[in-house]
């Protein structure tokens, strides 16, 4: 058996931003949201889990489709874990239950355009 080797991983040229494609699932399917309300919802989630310091971390809502409630978020790489964990633990939106489904996460925006799950083969 080989002895355990100490390995240090150094990542050079690590990407600055991380992009997340998320979709919001609500208890009452008919409710409509605006982009501002969605950003406020995510900020309240960050605030409850990570406090004022966490809620102050900048993130951007790049696109938002109102029919499917799908959004593309952009965050600095250091804040990805915080944002993702607060989305996971976010449970309520205006007294109705909600859940965030994270569809794709990538450091490159272009890779969010294609999704092999939605691919239909002839």
């Amino acid at each position, binding site marked *: 058996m080989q002895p355990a080797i100490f390995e240090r991983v150094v990542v050079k040229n690590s990407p600055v931003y991380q992009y997340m494609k998320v979709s919001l699932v609500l208890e009452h399917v008919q409710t409509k949201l605006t982009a501002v309300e969605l950003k406020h919802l995510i900020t309240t989630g*960050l*605030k*409850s*889990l*990570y*406090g*004022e*310091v*966490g809620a102050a971390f900048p993130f951007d809502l790049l696109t938002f489709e109102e029919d499917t409630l799908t959004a593309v978020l952009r965050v600095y790489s250091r804040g990805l874990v915080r944002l993702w964990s607060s989305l996971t633990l976010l449970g309520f939106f205006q007294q109705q239950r909600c859940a965030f489904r994270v569809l794709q996460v990538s450091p490159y925006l272009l890779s969010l355009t294609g999704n092999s799950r939605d691919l239909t083969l002839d």
Partner: protein
Amino acid sequence: MVRVKSRYLLCEINVSDQSKLLLLDDRAINGAVKDAVAFTHGDYGAAQCGLGFSVKYVNAHTGIMFLRCPKSSYRLIWSALPFITSIEKRGEKIPCFLNCLHVGGTIRTCQKFLVRYNTQQLHRMLPKCKTKEEKAQIRRAILCSSSYMLKGREERKKEKDD
């Protein structure tokens, strides 16, 4: 795993009303700091700091306190201290603010720093004295603390020679 390391924050509390200073006790400060950490860093911060945090020593006359924090989360607690604006004691809110003077690994290093800091403060108070009696009192206090520091140095020299 040789030793569990922790950090001791030496803080000074500044109160506008001197008489209210004497009402301080460790439980009130414990509650105030925990609330501040929960406000600043949310559930994550409150959980990380809640385990090893305790108030070790409070001096109500001078407003000095020692806070014990685990080594992994002492920066979270330190960053939350400026957000404390008041301490609640039996329904009464005492407006105050906390100053962190020193971070040490053990209570003894914090104590050594405190002796040096107090002698500096006494030196600063000396020119502001108005009566001769006050000056004599301060000079005696400086002499006391310097002899304490010298005694400590002599003891360490003896240990080296033995």
